[in-house]
């Protein structure tokens, strides 16, 4: 029994804003040996080259394997049209945050590992000939977490859409706000979403694509605000991570909870789309809205 005067049950202290959701294990253990890759869905061996050509989707069972942010972008847009912008934007360490390692060192590590300055890649591109602003999270960069640099780039992407009067497409995959930048990372939700609000007022479409996983502060801002929201199959999408929910309610979550199919059933997204169909689908939706 909880002390009636205690400042609340112990469980709520674990309740919110976790950086990396529990179930990111999916697709992590992709066995690759040279030319062959074992499918995480059907265990069949696939030619690595062919798997890459199919945007990492198994031709046998349609399992969607992990794909890098950059590869995904290049797969979606017209060949040779992606012009990356704002590459120089990077986070600082305003809190001098230190856990087992200094945040500045973590940041430097992610920069050298990914060859990028932040967890967000954005710029101009064409989609079936139509100019768009497009951006994607890079999950390899600190779990796609959103700090000041990501917030700045997402905001610039929306602002540029407004300036150049183009649609905006955002590909989400993020564990949420970046803990190491504290409350400033929380503020990025408001900053980016305010820019989106201006885009919407001008009648310019924004399509949000949700990929595995999209949770926390990214889900609770621009990711869930698309004029049209698409998701890849079986992606984990939600506000709280499943482990946090399990700890809170002290029961096992139902099968398929917080997956794309669950969200579709509950009216939270418009469609689940096979990754291989995305370029044509995005172009068609934009055409139906704009032409």
């Amino acid at each position, binding site marked *: 029994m909880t002390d*009636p*005067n*205690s*400042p*609340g*049950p112990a469980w*709520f*202290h*674990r*309740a*919110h*804003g*976790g*950086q*990396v959701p529990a179930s990111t294990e999916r697709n992590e253990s992709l066995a690759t040996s040279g030319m062959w890759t074992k499918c995480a869905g059907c265990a069949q061996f696939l030619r690595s080259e062919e798997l890459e050509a199919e945007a990492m989707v198994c031709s046998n069972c349609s399992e969607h394997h992990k794909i890098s942010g950059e590869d995904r972008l290049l797969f979606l847009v017209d060949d040779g049209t992606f012009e990356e912008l704002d*590459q*120089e*934007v*990077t*986070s600082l360490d*305003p809190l001098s*945050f230190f*856990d087992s390692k200094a945040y500045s060192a973590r940041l430097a590590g992610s920069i050298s590992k990914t060859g*990028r*300055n932040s967890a967000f890649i954005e710029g101009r591109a064409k989609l079936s000939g139509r100019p768009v602003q497009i951006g994607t999270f890079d999950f390899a960069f600190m779990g796609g977490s959103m*700090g*000041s*640099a990501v*917030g*700045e780039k997402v*905001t610039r992407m929306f602002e540029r859409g407004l300036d150049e009067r183009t649609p905006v497409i955002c590909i989400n995959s993020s564990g949420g*706000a*970046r*803990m190491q930048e*504290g*409350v*400033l*990372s*929380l*503020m990025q939700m*408001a*900053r980016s*979403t*305010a*820019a989106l*609000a201006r885009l*919407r*007022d001008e009648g310019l479409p924004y399509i949000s694509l949700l990929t595995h996983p999209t949770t926390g502060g990214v889900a*609770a801002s621009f*990711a*869930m605000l698309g004029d049209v929201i698409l998701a890849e199959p079986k992606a984990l999408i939600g*506000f*709280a991570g499943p482990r946090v*929910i399990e700890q809170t309610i002290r029961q096992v*979550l139902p099968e398929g*909870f*917080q997956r794309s199919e669950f969200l579709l059933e*509950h*009216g*939270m997204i418009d469609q689940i789309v096979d990754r291989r169909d995305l370029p044509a689908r995005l172009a068609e939706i934009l055409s139906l809205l704009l032409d």
Partner: protein
Amino acid sequence: MAAFVLDFERPIVDLEETISGLRELSAKGGIDVSAQIAELEAKATDLRKEVFADLTPYQMTQIARHPRRPYTLDYVEALMEGWQELHGDRNYKDDPAIVGGLARFQGRNVVVIGHQKGRSTKENVHRNFGMPRPEGYRKALRLMSLAERFGRPIVCFIDTPGAYPGIGAEERGQAEAIAKNILVMSKLRVPIIAVVIGEGGSGGALAIGVANRVLMLQNSMYSVISPEACASILFRDSTQGARAADALKYTAQDCLGLKVADEVIGEPLGGAHRDPEVVFTGIGEALNRHLCELEAIGFDAIAGDRYDRFRKLGVTHTAPPPQ
């Protein structure tokens, strides 16, 4: 019901109880103990200064979560007149973790929205410890739209451990509900002032926090994650909250430095619960002053003012793209 006392408050509260016991004794028995009382009073004053003057971030958090701390409805009662609470999201339910309604505040009519915690176990179950579900945010959104239609300024009181992480909350779109509030608030043409009165818990707080001015009580916090959750991720130990609290820099003073807060409102020594009148007065004065300033800006520029405020939040720099 014995009053809740924090560990570090204990010696002070014990001393204060001894003093009031002596006072009673002297009143009843006519024994003169005024010398002892004066001596103990002096000791209590010193002790209060010693303990309360230099609180650690985690001690401040314990004060921010103190079960005797004034909550939203206490501020409404102290500062507003003609309170008409309005219920429900017109869609699914009324969420008691968020309260809202119409009121008069120092000569103007306003819409008030706030997280609401409970004091007893029963009340806390009813209020879900101040952790809203989507219907709470949707009620808030409905009231904000009402404020916009009738040109009423909005006052938000923030005091939540966070949005509730549960099955039903996820099914009904907790993420979408928070996102939608942030989106709509960013465009409202009426002044919005948010006051963090206790816990500013992550997205659950921000969902009623996209304001022209954000004020914070001295011991309140505004954080992307609770110190305990942060500790369980970083140190794999949720009891290391004090360490995480230092690292997260979420105190009112820190938030002021990061420009997340625009003003810090002082609390009495030891926290708002020890003398609520002090914070009622302080918040009343600050609210009126900021509302006057914002009313002078005019409806047309209010959304732009809010945009500029949030656009600047964040610390980035430019570096050449790594090779």
